[in-house]
């Protein structure tokens, strides 16, 4: 679980850990089946250590487990903004991008369509670079085959971005 997703979920208002968990599970649907609930608290703990979130304990009846409300720090907020505008695509982590769109929309942090467009620009640029490189290769070169693989992968990602755009522009 990416830390940034959790951070972004806290961008608009402070929240309990279990609410954050429920939100992520809703967004992932069946893909969220294997989601480890404990991981959420581990992540929150690390974020707190890094000074990106702060937490306050709520006063509750003594027979119930304690509840913590998490809140973004200024550094955390900055990190969220950075993440939203980040277009690196090291390995197409579809879940992450998908959650980015969901969170951005739910928290009204950014227009998902803009995120898609920015991502597409970046991917097209990469596609162009890969394609030019592929075409510069002589016929039958081994590298051309590998480059073709890269091109096809980016192409698939772009196709998915199109799908994202269609869905998000249908007034979600």
């Amino acid at each position: 679980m990416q830390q940034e997703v959790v951070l972004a979920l806290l961008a608009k208002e402070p929240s309990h850990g279990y609410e954050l968990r429920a939100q992520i599970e809703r967004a992932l649907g069946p893909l969220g089946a294997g989601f480890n609930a404990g991981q959420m608290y581990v992540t929150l703990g690390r974020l707190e250590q890094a000074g990106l979130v702060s937490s306050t304990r709520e006063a509750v009846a003594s027979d119930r487990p304690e509840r913590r409300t998490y809140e973004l720090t200024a550094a955390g907020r900055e990190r969220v903004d950075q993440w939203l505008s980040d277009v690196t695509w090291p390995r197409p982590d579809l879940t992450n991008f998908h959650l980015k769109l969901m969170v951005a929309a739910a928290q009204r942090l950014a227009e998902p369509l803009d995120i898609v467009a920015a991502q597409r620009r970046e991917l097209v640029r990469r596609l162009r670079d890969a394609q030019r490189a592929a075409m510069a290769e002589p016929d039958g070169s081994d590298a051309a085959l590998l480059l073709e693989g890269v091109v096809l992968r980016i192409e698939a990602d772009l196709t998915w971005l199109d799908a994202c755009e269609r869905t998000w522009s249908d007034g979600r």
Partner: protein
Amino acid sequence: MSGVVRVVGLAKHYGNGNALVRAVDDVDLEVATGEAVVITGPSGCGKSTLLHLMGGLDRPDAGEVWIAGRRIDHTSERTRARLRRDNVGFVFQEFHLMEELTAVENVELPALLAGRSSRQARRRATALLEQVGLERQAGHLPSALSGGQKQRVAIARALVNEPAVLLADEPTGSLDSAATIEVLRLFERLRANGQTLVVVTHDQRTAATADRMVGMRDGAFVEDVALGPETASAAQILTAGSRE
């Protein structure tokens, strides 16, 4: 210095009242010499209409179209035809080759129209076919060519009069991926040689031939971005592709 192609406040509407379609709605675009521009957008957003207007195949309802420094939107059909002949090469999705003419006869046709001698035209056509890698198919009828070969013939035909700009409407729209690569290779070579290109497409790979990408929705531009200089070497791409 204005670009090879420039459109200002361009508009083209179809129908009226409730059925009014703003196929092109107040569009500005300037394509510089040697630039490769791709226009993308969903089906029906007005890409073909815009391209037709830029090539003077249709008259706009408003706005200006300039080609090679001349305004063409209000000139006579005849003047526009001459301008097209000398400055614009068209490539279409459906190739539009003349079925009864061989590849080389198709390619030489615009040169003949431009008044070159039949020998000059033939020489030029043969050279271009060689350039698109079809010298062996020069004598074939289109029916004997594959889709990619047909489109390469069509591109050669569009280039025979050395146009200032090549306008292509879904040039790979009827092609499978192997044939698409044939055509893209050719576009890439043209671009590298400084040919000004305007390509309408919704194919990702075709779009990736561009230096600049224009996105269109409902007749208007929603983005117009330069893809910037090439940033990555082949090695970087490979690592980018395989990085965890």
